[in-house]
Structures are given as C-alpha cells and as structure tokens.
C-alpha cells in the first residue's frame, strides 16, 4: 500500500489530504474532555473563540443543536426576582441601537411606538408566538380572543368583541401584506438525517469503545489493543464463526475482511484514510461535503470521538492502561459501518438506491434536514401566525384597533418586518445582556465604594507602617485564587483581623508530576496547558525488617479487596459470597445509607469531638533530586513577588501558611471536577507542601536574598490542604516547627477552625437544610461528603462571575458571595507589567475556562452539559454515559449548575488602563478572549477608586452582521459608576447570609459597624451617583 505520499498518484494524494483536512476540521468541533479522572474546565465552545461571543453562541447552537441563551421564560423569572431590571433592559437596547437619540432607536412604528419601546415591550413580556396546530389550539381553547393579555397596554376591553375586532383587523391587514420570502433551509437539527444509520451502528461502537478504552473495569481485558483502534476492531469482530444475525453486521464483516486485505494487490491492511476514501465514495458523498459528512459522523458520537481525539493529543491522561487512539481510525470505522448498513439495506430492497438508504445524509444532511423536519406550513397557517404576532404586539405596545386600521401598507409592512427581525433569539439576547449588565454594575458599585484609594493598607487600621523585619501582619495565608476560597478568606479575616490572605494559582508555581505513597503512577499537578518537567514522589514506606510479613499482609489485604470487588461478579465466587456473606452486607448497607453521619463522625471526629483542622504526618517528600536550589528559588521568588509579598512595604511574616485545596466525596464519578483547576482536577495539597518546603530550604533563602528577597530566618512556611467539601484543613510537616513558631501556629489554627466552621455555615445556606450553627454546619458538610446518596456534596464553582486581580485591600471586607476569583497582585513594583503579563497568561485561560464551561452548562444543560447525574454510569473508568448505553456525557451535570447564573466573567485588573490594554493587545490569546467578549475586561485604577470597562464597538447590529464576519472589534474604555449604594452589615458575614438561600447582593462587612462609622465613611468615594443617573449617558 502506498504509504509514502511521494509515490502516490497526484489524484489519490489530493483526495487523501482533503480527507485528512476534513478529519482535522471535524476534530476541532468535538468536546475537549479527556478521561474523567482528570477533569479540566474549558470553554465548551472553544472551537468558536475566533468569533465574537454573541454570534458564536448562535452559530454553535445551530451546529450542535443547542440553545444560544436561556429560554425566554427563565429570563422573565429573573426579571421578577430583580436579577434583571427593566432599566437594564432599556440600557442594553439603547446601547444596541446607538444611544438614546440615535436614529435607529427612535424609528417610529405603528404611528407612535419607537423601536426602543417596541423592543423593550416585546422582551419583557412572556413570549406569545405560536404556529400551526398550537396556534389553532390557543385560538380555540384559551381566552386569547376574549380578553387582552395581562401585559397589554390597551385600555382593558369591556367586551370580548373589542378583542375580537382587533384580531379580525390584524388578520385582515396581514392579508394585505406581501408574502415574506420563503425561509432558507436552516436546519435546527443537523444530525437528524443520519439517525437511522446511527441507531444501528452506535450501540456496537459504544460497547466496543468502552471495552477498548477500559482502564480496568472489565474482568477480561480486550486483546490486541496495542495494535490500534482499527486493527483491534478487526481482531474482535472478525472472530471466525460469529453469528451474523443482523444483515448489516454480515456486510460489515465482509467489508472489514476486504479492508484487512488492503485496497489493491498489496496485502497490507488498508489504513484509515484509505478506508475513509472508499467509504465516502461508496456512500456517494461528493467531495465538497466530505467535511460536513465527517463532522456529522463524529458528532453523532461526539463524546467518544472527543475522548479519542484527546487521548490522541495527550495519551498520558489515560490513568492505568495505555491504548493508542486516532480520530481518523474511529471515523474510518464509523463510516465503514455506516456503509455496511446502507448497503445491506439497499440489498434487501428496503429502499431502491444507496442514496435513499442513507436518507440523504450523503449529500449533506444540513441541506435536507430543514425540508424533512418542518412540514411545509400552508399559506393560511403562516398568515395566522403572522396575524397573531401582530395582534400580540399591538396589545403590548398599546396600538388601538383604529390606529392599526389606519396604517398605510408600507408602515404596516415595516412594523411587521420589525416584529419578524426582533425574533425569539434577539429578545433572549437582549435579556441576557441585561442580566449580565446588572450583575456587572453591582460588582463595579461594590468595588468602587469599598476600595481604598490610599496605598497604605487602610482596610485594617491596625496595620502599622512597614517595619524592617516583619510587617504588622500576625501571619499570612496563601490560598488558591479559587472563588470557593473567597468565603474562607473573608471569614478568616473576620475571625483574626491581623491576618493577611493572598490568592495565587493553586499549584503555587510548582508544576510537577507527583506520585503519592500508595499510588501506582505519577499524576500531573499543574494547569492543563503546562507539561511538567519535574517529578516528585513521596517516599515508599521502609520495608527492611519485616518485609516478607508485610508483603504478604498487603497481598492478603489486596486479595480480600479484589474479591470484594471482582468476586461478586463471577459465577462461583459470586455464589459463595452471596450465600455466605450476602446477608452481612446488610450491615454496611444500612449503616452507609441510613446513618452516614456515624461514618462521617468516625472518619472526621476524634475522641475529643469534631475537628476541622488536623495535623497529619505525611511520608517524606523526595524533593532534592528533582528540583535544584536555583529552580526552587525561581518558584518561590515568582510566586511571592507576583502576590505582592516581596515588595518593600510587605515581606513574609513570621508564619506563612500555604493552602492547596481538594474536594473529597463518595459515589461521585465527577469528583475530579471539584478539585483544584490549577492542579488538573487533583488536590493541591502536595503542591502547597512542596512550596512550603522550598521556601523553608536554607539554600533557597540564600539565593532569594541574593535577588533582594530577604526571608527572615525565623519565618516558617507550613503547607496544608483545604478540603472544600468537608471544610477541613490538614497541615503537613508541623512537627518540625520550633516552639515560638508553633505557638503562633496554634493561634492560627484556632482562627482557622473558627473560619472553617463559619465557612461551612455559609455554604450550607444553599443546601435546603435550614439554618445551622457553625459547628453543626461543619458536621453537616462532613456528613455530606460521606453520604452515598448525596448528588451535591458541594456546589463547586457554581455562581462564579467575577475575577479581581489586585491587592486584597481592594476587596477586603466585601461580601462577594463566593462569586469572585481573587488573584493577588500588587501593581506597585511592576511598572512594566511583566509580572502581570505572566500572571494573566497563566490565570485567565483557566478562570475563563471554568466560567465558560459553567456558562454553557447552565444555558443548555442537556446539550452542552451532561444532564442530570442520577442515571450516569461509569464506563471504562474514562467517562460516564446515561444508563447502559449512550454516548459519553461530557461537560457539567445538572446538579452542579442548578444554582449557577450564566454570566460571562468580569475580569477586573488593578492596573493603569493603558498599560493593561497594551498588554492585552500584545498577547493573541488574551486579545481574542477580550476583543471577542468571551469575558469582560475592566481596569481598576491603582491609586483611585475608579473603574473603566473595556467596551467593544459593534460595527453594525449583531443580528444583521454575518457570523464570523467581525474579528477586529474596535475598543474603548468607559468609566463605570456607582449605580447602587453598598449595604454595610456587621459584625460578620453571617449577619448578611444567615437564613437566606438565594443569590445575595454584594455587601460590606464592617466588624465595628457602629463605632467606626465615621472612619469607614472616609473610605467611600465622595460622590455616589444615584441609581437613577442617566445610564445611557454613561455609555455615550
């Protein structure tokens, strides 16, 4: 077989490269989720990032058959709840239409209604668009023709005939209008056409792929997997003597056999591209549709295809068994089976031609999909629907029957066209933008009113001017920038005002492959984009003296465990286990289900009661070989400097706690998604521990001192791990602390214990368990993490909306409701913004990935997310499917996004705005995210309480713009103003959140609210503009 392209005839070569390109193109559209044990949050629509957000969601929605925004009704609920206000909607409409005085805005319809008003009314009222039989039902069975709808602006009808008259006039007038141009065949469901091929082929592929990628679930592993997908498939399904029950299966075996012999005279098996070419030819797919056909084929099993592509890119992500995977192989298989089904059907005479057998999929389903799915609506039906739309709009805008009757045909036609163009998607878009705007303005207001313009740490007046050796901070805590740590930091600061907290990426600069003591393999503990160059392991336990005894004990233990797991599943051992031990499993069954609290106490509680902070003895870290002192110094220097802990005014205090985070729960296949995003979904504890040991290393400190970062000799770094589900902390290596540091550590532990319990209390407000005391809340959190029946051990990143990069002083004392990623950065001492560049490049993709995955998971959970997790079934240890047979479910499950508010991230950076824009302009990755509005960028002035938002100027109204046409939006800064006063509550956060379970407004928590009134007032910006300030003017 000609493998070398140079030897091939040019014609074949061209087709091959065309197919290869089509495979590549298809691969971009697949979900980028690898094996489920390493869950990495990413933008679900990563393939569309080059397009502006607002058009991308529509394009992608069409591609995947998903929704671009929430359903209209859901926004109306938010309108009722006050999460959107009518003023926000009008502000969005006005800015969409080029300002309040713009010509577009003030165009008049139906005699008196401006376009702005029309949009506003249509958007803020329940949608009432019906067509076909549904409309018939509405007209016949509801009171639509008897009374005006509730939102109507017309004077209430005294008689039903008045309503009827309006309807009759609407019908009459619509008949005068010219017919609208026929709708283009836009397919709402691009994959519909191939469904019957998939019905036959996909179950077989799902079973095969599950076993092929199996990492250790099946008792008999599949053979010959190392030969690759295609070859392995041949090995399995060409087993001699298999019954060929379904005709297509017989045909598939023939094709496989042929392909094993190679396409031509040579006896090499055909490779993927060759097979693809043959199948595409046989299916009669014209060359210009190759890409479309392959994309549809891949998306019909998108979860698996995506996994295969991910494994192809990062084979090391498979946890236990390495298996080769190529997307081209998968597609070749898929098409071969498609072809077998089509040919078998053609042969049995079901349909005459192959073309018909494939249901037109061959000629590109998108072209036929629309025509097939939508029955041609008759002219009368279309007229009725149009009239009803008009009828509805007249009521909403208060257009009287007489006015309607008097409109000229041109005016009426314009009115009707406007109604048609401001369609469902456009209305939802406006509402969505208003929804985002509202939250953003609240965030800006809070930041503007809270932030202290003075560079000195005025947030806690106890802070004295920086001393030479130690600043006033009692101790410092480095945590992950994760938004779940926002509340812990706040509570800790409330409990012990002398503390300083810093948010850094949770891998603490330590990008490593880590192997825990009991683990079989290394695991990468760093952001997904980094390939770690260092490997660190925990020391194996010493087995010198009683090695043999211990070894056999381990063997016995593991064989017991093996039997527990496997034994029950085989015939004989299963029978023995059932008969002899079966009844005994009632004990764990009843205990674990009815009394998980007992187990939780057993696991977490000690004799003296429940403890939220413990000190664990961890095995020794083998650090020396993997990092040189210079490399360690680099890591420590980078992290401390960026966080602002190595400035002239601020140096490490006597005790620095470094806290990674992890989330442990049971019966949760998605556990990795709850872990630390900066550690590839694993726990960041080892990173914190390694970092602390690095900073503790005397040689490293010497090197740091040479660079000007002096860490006093009596400063101690202690690493630990915060379990965000249980709200507990485990500290490592505390036995080495000298007495005076140990004393300070004790104080810190006391404060942390308090803070953790309060944090648990804040988290439980979301859980439907009523108001709990901090202690009981902490117990409840522990209980949840041990509960087999608990689908929501915690809410993970839900409600994330904001990211503040800057000094903690700018946010300290603000109740941010666990919505804000807080990244510590001190602009002073970083005049060239080089630290900021590195920081943003590292942090923004991770944070935006989390935010956007939650965004789309919430917008369309069934399409972009994984649906409810209740029927999820782990397959091959690489993913989950629904029940016993479905595609892999990727993305986020319903239980974790149910309280999420899908808003794009607002990234507020404490930096001069011109510096910031220069920086963003220079980095293509950031530029694309910012300019295409996948996040909203704002600059917080370092020396003043002022915020500017970076706004893009729309070239034309997005609904008119061709998708993908724009790419170079022009940008400008607009200053944000205070739109609502900041509520100040005290003495701690509980006063604000206790007893409330919904979303809370941002608020100021002032410990001494009454006594320090005057002082805190000085922190406020002098003038607070009223909420009713002309919002349009702000934007102009």
């Amino acid at each position: 077989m000609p493998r070398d392209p140079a030897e091939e005839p040019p014609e074949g070569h061209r087709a091959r490269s065309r197919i290869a390109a089509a495979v590549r193109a298809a691969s971009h559209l697949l979900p980028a989720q690898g094996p489920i044990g390493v869950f990495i949050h990413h933008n679900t629509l990563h393939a569309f990032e080059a397009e502006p957000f607002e058009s991308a969601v529509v394009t992608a929605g069409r591609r995947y058959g998903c929704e671009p925004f929430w359903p209209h009704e859901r926004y109306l609920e938010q309108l009722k709840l006050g999460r959107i206000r009518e003023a926000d909607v009008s502000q969005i409409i006005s800015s969409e239409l080029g300002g309040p005085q713009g010509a577009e805005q003030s165009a008049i319809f139906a005699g008196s209604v401006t376009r702005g008003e029309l949009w506003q009314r249509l958007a803020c009222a329940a949608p009432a668009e019906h067509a076909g039989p549904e409309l018939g039902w509405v007209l016949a069975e509801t009171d639509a023709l008897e009374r005006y709808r509730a939102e109507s602006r017309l004077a209430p009808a005294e008689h039903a005939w008045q309503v009827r008259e309006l309807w009759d006039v609407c019908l009459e007038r619509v008949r005068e209008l010219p017919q609208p141009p026929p709708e283009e065949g836009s397919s709402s469901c691009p994959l519909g056409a191939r469904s019957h091929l998939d019905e036959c082929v996909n179950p077989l592929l799902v079973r095969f792929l599950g076993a092929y990628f199996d990492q250790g679930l099946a008792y008999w592993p599949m053979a010959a997997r190392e030969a690759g997908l295609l070859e392995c498939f041949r090995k399995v399904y060409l087993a001699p003597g298999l019954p060929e029950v379904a005709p297509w299966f017989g045909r598939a075996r023939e094709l496989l056999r042929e392909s094993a012999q190679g396409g031509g005279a040579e006896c090499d098996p055909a490779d993927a591209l060759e097979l693809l070419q043959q199948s595409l030819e046989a299916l009669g797919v014209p060359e210009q549709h190759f890409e479309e056909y392959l994309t549809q084929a891949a998306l019909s099993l998108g979860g698996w295809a995506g996994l295969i592509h991910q494994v192809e890119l990062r084979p090391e992500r498979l946890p236990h068994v390495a298996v080769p995977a190529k997307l081209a192989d998968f597609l070749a298989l898929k098409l071969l089976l498609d072809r077998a089904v089509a040919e078998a059907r053609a042969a049995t005479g079901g349909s005459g031609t192959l073309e018909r057998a494939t249901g037109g999929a061959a000629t590109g389903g998108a072209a036929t999909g629309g025509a097939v799915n939508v029955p041609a609506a008759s002219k009368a039906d279309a007229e009725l629907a149009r009239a009803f739309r008009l009828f509805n709009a007249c009521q909403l805008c208060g257009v009287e029957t007489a006015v309607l009757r008097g409109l000229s045909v041109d005016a009426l036609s314009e009115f009707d066209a406007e109604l048609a163009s401001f369609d469902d998607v456009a209305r939802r878009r406006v509402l969505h933008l208003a929804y985002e705007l509202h939250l953003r303005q609240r965030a800006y207001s809070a930041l503007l009113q809270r932030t202290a313009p003075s560079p000195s740490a005025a947030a806690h007046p106890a802070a004295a001017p920086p001393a030479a050796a130690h600043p006033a901070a009692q101790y410092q805590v480095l945590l992950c920038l994760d938004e779940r740590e926002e509340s812990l930091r706040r509570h800790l600061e409330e409990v012990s005002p002398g503390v300083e907290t810093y948010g850094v990426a949770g891998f603490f600069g330590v990008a490593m492959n880590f192997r825990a003591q009991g683990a079989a393999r290394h695991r990468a503990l760093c952001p997904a984009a980094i390939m770690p160059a260092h490997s660190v392991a925990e020391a194996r336990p010493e087995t010198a003296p009683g090695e043999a005894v211990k070894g056999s004990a381990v063997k016995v233990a593991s064989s017991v465990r093996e039997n527990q797991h496997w034994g029950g599943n085989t015939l004989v051992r299963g029978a023995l286990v059932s008969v002899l031990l079966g009844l005994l499993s009632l004990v764990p069954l009843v205990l674990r289900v009815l009394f998980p609290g007992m187990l939780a106490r057993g696991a977490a509680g000690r004799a003296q009661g429940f403890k939220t902070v413990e000190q664990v003895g961890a095995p020794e870290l083998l650090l020396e070989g993997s990092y040189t002192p210079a490399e360690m110094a680099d890591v420590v220097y980078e992290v401390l400097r960026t966080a602002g802990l190595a400035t002239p005014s601020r140096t490490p205090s006597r005790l620095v706690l470094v806290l990674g985070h992890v989330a442990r729960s049971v019966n949760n296949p998605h556990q990795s998604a709850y872990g630390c995003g900066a550690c590839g979904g694993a726990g960041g504890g080892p990173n914190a521990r390694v970092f602390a040991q690095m900073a503790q290393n005397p040689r490293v400190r010497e090197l740091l001192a040479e660079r000007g970062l002096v860490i006093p000799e009596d400063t101690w770094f202690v690493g630990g791990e915060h379990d965000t589900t249980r709200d507990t902390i485990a500290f490592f290596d505390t036995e080495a602390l000298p007495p005076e540091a140990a004393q300070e550590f004790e104080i810190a532990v006391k404060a942390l214990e308090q803070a953790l319990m309060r944090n648990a209390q804040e988290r439980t407000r979301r859980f439907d368990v009523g108001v709990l005391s901090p202690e009981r809340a902490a117990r409840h959190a522990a209980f949840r993490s041990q509960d087999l029946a608990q689908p929501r051990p915690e809410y993970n990143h839900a409600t994330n909306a904001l990211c503040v990069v800057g000094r903690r002083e700018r946010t300290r004392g603000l109740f941010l409701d666990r919505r804000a990623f807080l990244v510590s950065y001190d602009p002073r001492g970083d005049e060239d913004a080089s630290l900021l560049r590195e920081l943003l490049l590292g942090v923004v993709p991770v944070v935006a990935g989390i935010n956007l995955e939650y965004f789309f998971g919430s917008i369309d959970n069934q399409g972009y997310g994984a649906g409810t997790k209740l029927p999820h079934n782990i397959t091959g240890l690489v993913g989950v499917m629904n029940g016993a047979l479905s595609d892999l479910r990727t993305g986020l499950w319903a239980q974790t996004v149910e309280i999420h508010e899908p808003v794009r991230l607002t990234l507020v950076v404490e930096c001069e705005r011109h510096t910031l824009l220069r920086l963003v302009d220079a980095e293509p990755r950031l530029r694309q995210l910012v300019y295409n509005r996948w996040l909203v960028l704002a600059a917080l002035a370092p020396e003043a309480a002022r915020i500017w938002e970076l706004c893009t100027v729309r070239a034309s109204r997005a609904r008119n713009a061709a998708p993908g046409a724009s790419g170079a939006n022009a940008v400008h800064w607009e200053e944000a103003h205070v739109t609502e006063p900041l509520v100040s509550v005290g003495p701690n956060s509980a006063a604000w959140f206790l007893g409330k379970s919904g979303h809370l407004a941002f608020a100021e928590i002032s410990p001494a609210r009454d006594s320090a009134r005057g002082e805190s007032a000085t922190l406020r910006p002098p003038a607070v503009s009223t909420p009713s300030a002309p919002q349009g003017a702000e934007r102009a």
Partner: protein
Amino acid sequence: MSRELVLTLGVLCCVAAPLVLFLVLAASGLFGRPLAEPATARAARGAMLVSALGSLIAIAAFVSLGARVQVLDFGTWFSSGHGAFAMRLLVDPLSLAFSGLATTLCGVVAAFSGRYLQREPGHLRYFMLFAAFAGGMQLIALAGSMEVLFAGWELVGLSSALLVAFFHTRSAPVQNGLWVFAVYRLSDAAMLAAAVAVHHHVGSGDLSLLFSAGDSAAIVSPQLATLVAALLLLSVACKSALLPFSGWLPRAMEGPTPSSAVYYGALSVHAGCYLLIRAAPLLEQAPLVRIAAAVLGAVTALYATLVARVQADVKSSLAFAALSQVGLIVLEIALGLYTLAFVHLVGHACFRMLQLLSAPDALRGHEQLSAVHAETGRQYAALPAGARRWLYAFALERGFLDAALQRWVVRPFRRVTGALNTVDRWLVGGRSPAARAAKPPEPRK
C-alpha cells in the same frame, strides 16, 4: 388482643403502608396539589418504616403462634358465577422472610432516594412509582390467591417500566422502558393464562392449596400441573430476565441509580425465583418443566457470567453478574435445593444492592485497585486463541440476543401488525378525508 389479630394487623401494615403511600402521592399529584419534596420523602420514609415494623410484628406474632401456615382473608373483591376474586394472603415462614427482605431493602432505598432525588424534576412521580413497586412486592410475597399474585406482578411490572422511562425527556429511556414493558407484558400474559387455567379447572385461585405440598397433587392433574408450571416458568423467565429475554436487563439501567438497585439488583429480578420456590409443590408434579427450568437456569448462568466478564461499564457488568446468580438460583430450585436457593436469593439481593448503590464510586475504588487488576482474567488467558476471540466477541455483543429478537420476533411482529393496520384502514376509513389527513408518519424500518 389475640395473636391472630396481631398477625393480621402486622401483615396489613406491611402490605397497606406502601399502597396507601401510593394512593396519597398519586392523589396529591392528580388533584393539582403535589406534595412538597421534603414531605414526599418524609412520607415515603414513614410508610416504609410502618411497613418494616408491621413485618417485624407479623414475624413475632407468627413465631409465637407456632403455626405452619396462616391464611388471612380480607374478603372478596368481586365474584361472578363460580369465580371469585379473593383478597387472600398466605403467611408462612417463606412469605414472611421474603416480605421482610422486601421491606428492609425498600426502606433503605426510600431513605437513599430522599436525598438522591432532591430537587430532581419528577420527584413525586418517582416516589409514587416506588410506592407502587413496594406494595406490589408485598403482594407478591404474601399472595394467597392467583389474583393477588397477579395484581402484585402487574404493579411491579408497570412501575418498573415507568421508572426505566423516568427521564422521559430523552428518547433512549423511553425506548428502553417500552422494551421492558413489552417483555413484562409477555410475562403478565403467561401469568394471566396460568390463573385462568387454574380457575377453569380448579374453580379457585387459592394458592394455599395449589402451592402446598399435600394438597397440590390432590387438586390438579399432572397435565394441568405441567401446563400451569410451564406458564409460570415463562412468566418467571421474562420477569427474571432468563434466556432468551436477558437483553432487557441492561436496558433497564436507564432509571435513577436507586431504582436500578432495588429492581434489577435486589427485588424485581428475584421475584421470579421466589415465585418458583413458592410453586415448588406444583413444579414437583411437572418433571418436564423442572428439567426445562434447570436447563434455563444453567444456560442463563453460564451466558450471563460470560457476558458480565467483558462488560466495561459498571451497571451492565453488575446487571449480568446479578443475572448469573439468578440463573444459579433457578437451577438450585429446579434441583430441589429450596433452602439453599432462598438463602442464596436473600444474600445475593443484599449484596448486589450494596454494589449497585455504590456503583458511581467505581472510579475511587479503582484508584486503590489498579495494581491488582492485571491478575484478572486468568481462565480467559488459558483458552485457545480462536475460542478466546469468539467468546470475547460473543460476550461483548451479549450473545446477539437483542439482534435476534429484533430480527425474528420484533420485525415479523411489526410486519404482521403493519399489514393488519393497512387492511384495517382500507376496510374502515381508508377513503375518508379525515383518515387521510391523520395519516401517521411512516414507521421506521
């Protein structure tokens, strides 16, 4: 209070509590005042607790009575001619033990589901169906007449199919629910036929006679015994997923995890086995059916254990592993090892339920197990290469059972009904405009 009365009350609690729960939940939904989630969950827990307590009381009363069998009559629902629908329960150690097992496991699942289904759309529907199931299991366990048995059988079957289709906004659960429903209908039909045959020849569906060692031989002829036993075996084969109906078992895993656990891990799959143990005296008079049962059990066990070995997803592998034990239990019954079979049944139900409830934990379990994994599949490695390949593909495709059913049962059946439909439309209203307008979409091939 006499001990008989206590026994009656206990048994009544046992059976009635879930049925009352079902009625309350159904009524609250029907009249547009659905119970709130916490109230529903609390009611379910309460009803299951009452049921379990009733079971305990009944057991205590029964032991203190020292009787071998007690028949409790709750009157006649209706009668026509010489046939009567007798509401009769049969209390003996076997029925009390199975009823106790059912209340215990249902109680555990009720508690589990209360938390697991929090905030899930369809919360009320789930608990309503679950209550129907729990009541149905009690009826099966304690049935004293064919009619009561049939009622229980129906409740279990219907709630089962509806819970498989619980997530009815996606198409797969609904399709699979339909598949399960179709198999269960066959099971019900066989059961109904058995009931009719018994009624016709014996005059009553009294199980205390039919299923008791002494009386059974006296009242049924060998031919009738063979017929009824065969029908029961068919019914059991459908209900317990014996060959060739095994294909529905993995499909039934579409529902929420706890319902999968209690139906297909614990109770529903074993209901058939229980019925066979119950019907042992009848079975003993029908040696041919016994042989058939033995063969069916053995072949199913071998088939299921083979298939279970290669399944790479947790729930399928557990479903087939459970089926292999069910096959063994049927074999044990056919061999006359009733006590062993019952102990096996109880132990297996508890064990499998624990496994299924913690199925989503497999990922965590394997972190610790990864080192051990290499040792599995030793017998497989010892097989000759050709046999290995054939067995593997055969097992991965689950013996091509579904495809065979599709080709040789479903398709001919659909062809026949399609043809009948065409004839029907041609005869009745083919030419009327209304019928033409209401032409159904072309059936999928």
